[in-house]
């Protein structure tokens, strides 16, 4: 790999990964989207409006917080938390939905659709749709509707129609299938806001570019607060949007190590997990080539994670490329370890993290003690944990 990083190529390839693998009906819509995106991402007026929305509506910049007590407790590297949980709607997802909604408006689309797993992206989409007065339909696996009831209610309050998806494993991948079917059917007036760095080109690059504000801010904040760049970055990876958002602005900073944390569920060795980069193989799903969880016949395997937002059998193609080139390391954390990470941060720092982010925190508890006290880790605290109270209470046998 050269020092200069300029992925993807014009057709959306990250090495062998990415690309456009969709049914013919979607091709014109994807071409239209790509042309609009390539135009507006360089348009000063669009970028000024986006910056203003991120500042005044989302509440950016999000703080970079030195978790001193937790760092001291672990006795190793200094841990800084990038507080995406403090964004409007409580997670990093809104960075992307604000951007794509502005694009939808510029393209004259009147109807927004989205898929959601944990419900964070669905809420973030319903939020921007409400603000712009656009019709909004969110597809959500029936299993996720059950375990994320609070977010379902939030979306409904915001005026969105939430469609429970009953096909397949009734989780995020099936919601994505159903959203694609809707898009094919209503292609003229509908804009599909994908919530992660997956899907056909230009989605992986576009969502990355909207999320890269996380890493740009964190890089500058770290220099301002600590006088230098961090030594390591840690973020959870489901589809991988919060991780790419943090990693991307550091890719050319070769000394900065990157750790993407996948969900090991019951443990990678049990087969009941959501860790395609750690234990999957390359294939094609949802419009791009990437690492997947598939059996020998190429059928997609059902995934398992306590965290609905990580319960996805694929991963963004750029992560596949960063894995193969060795630029980023991909590790995994079990449900049990993630829960321990959840409690640790809550009790040590008075911050209740999302279960997704808890995977990154749990890995940090392993990584920090192996580093020196003058070294720095930035962890992406991608979302807040309010939505997970029900799941955690159920898991720990608590009732109110």
């Amino acid at each position: 790999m050269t020092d200069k990083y300029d992925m993807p190529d014009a057709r959306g390839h990250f090495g062998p990964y990415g690309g456009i693998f969709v049914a013919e009906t979607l091709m014109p819509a994807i071409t239209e989207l790509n042309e609009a995106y390539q135009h507006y991402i360089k348009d000063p007026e669009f970028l000024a409006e986006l910056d203003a929305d991120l500042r005044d509506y989302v509440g950016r910049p999000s703080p970079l917080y030195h978790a001193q007590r937790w760092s001291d407790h672990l006795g190793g590297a200094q841990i800084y938390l990038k507080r995406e949980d403090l964004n409007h709607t409580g997670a990093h997802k809104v960075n992307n939905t604000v951007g794509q909604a502005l694009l939808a408006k510029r393209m004259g689309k009147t109807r927004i659709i989205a898929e959601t797993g944990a419900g964070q992206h669905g809420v973030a989409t319903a939020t921007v749709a409400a603000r712009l007065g656009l019709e909004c339909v969110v597809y959500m696996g029936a299993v996720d509707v059950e375990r994320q009831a609070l977010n379902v209610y939030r979306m409904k309050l915001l005026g969105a129609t939430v469609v429970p998806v009953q096909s397949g494993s009734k989780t995020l991948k099936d919601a994505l299938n159903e959203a694609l079917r809707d898009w094919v059917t209503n292609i003229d007036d509908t804009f599909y806001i994908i919530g992660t760095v997956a899907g056909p080109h230009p989605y992986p690059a576009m969502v990355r570019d909207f999320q890269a504000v996380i890493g740009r801010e964190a890089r500058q904040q770290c220099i301002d607060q600590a006088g230098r760049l961090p030594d390591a970055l840690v973020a959870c990876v489901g589809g991988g949007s919060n991780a790419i958002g943090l990693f991307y602005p550091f890719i050319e900073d070769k000394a900065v190590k990157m750790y993407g944390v996948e969900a090991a569920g019951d443990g990678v060795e049990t087969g009941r997990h959501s860790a395609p980069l750690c234990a999957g193989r390359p294939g094609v799903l949802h419009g791009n080539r990437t690492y997947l969880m598939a059996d020998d016949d190429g059928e997609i395997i059902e995934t398992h994670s306590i965290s609905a937002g990580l319960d996805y059998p694929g991963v963004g193609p750029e992560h596949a490329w960063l894995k193969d080139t060795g630029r980023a390391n991909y590790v995994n954390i079990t449900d049990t370890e993630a829960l321990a990470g959840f409690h640790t941060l809550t009790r040590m720092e008075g911050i209740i993290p999302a279960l997704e982010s808890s995977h990154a925190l749990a890995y940090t508890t392993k990584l920090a003690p192996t580093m020196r006290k003058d070294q720095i880790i930035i962890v992406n605290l991608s979302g807040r944990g309010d939505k997970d109270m029900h799941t955690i209470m159920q898991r720990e046998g608590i009732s109110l």
Partner: protein
Amino acid sequence: MSRLSTKFAELKASGRKALIPFITAGDPYPEFTVPLLHEMVAAGADVIELGVPFSDPMADGPVIQRASERALSHHVGLRKVLSMAIEFRKTDQTTPLVLMGYLNPIEIMGYEDFANAAQRADVDGVLTVDLPPEESENCVALLRERGIDQIFLLAPNTTAERIQKMHQVGSGYLYYVSLKGVTGAGHLDTADVDQKLQLIRANTDLPVGVGFGVKDAETAQKIAAIADGVVVGSALISKIEANLDDPQQAKHEIIALLKSMRQAMDV
């Protein structure tokens, strides 16, 4: 000349149109499929599209999704479908057989292994829903070397430029999906299809099959009047779904529907 080219040339010479039924392999159970294929040929099918079940059929409506789920519950995947193709060929050496499905099973098997296996099974064409021409180069080359046609989809919003691209990389026939949407949806507008066919024909001389929305003898007749082939899928699979407790009845109804279509198309 491939079996598909031969078949379409013969049909053209006799002034007839191709009747192309689609069914999902292994639905409702594996042993049902090969005998049904033979009976469909006897009922007047010219080309068979055999669906390879996939866990995530993104371009399919509920009817074909459920067919995939039923087949997958019997573990019918790409390898099993290839073995069904071998069995079919034992007693039918003339009817073109096209495998239709999604790319991932082929990716996981590997393009070259798949091309070899398809050749061994004497498959005539491969239609991969989520493999547009831009990404198809490697796969098409391997299939072409083995005399297997790669069939591409055309949609109502496909441009002339893209039709030319399909013409370059595709062979056998092109499959025009007459509706924006998933399989099994909506109603067919013959005038729209006719108009689009003119654009398609201006850019390719490959035969064009039309599908999505073909439900009965009447729609089959209308499409046959303007296209080279009529594809019927969800309407057949609905018969399986309506008779899950009596698959022989399903077969009976499928054959009756195909015969009525054949008759209407040949008038």
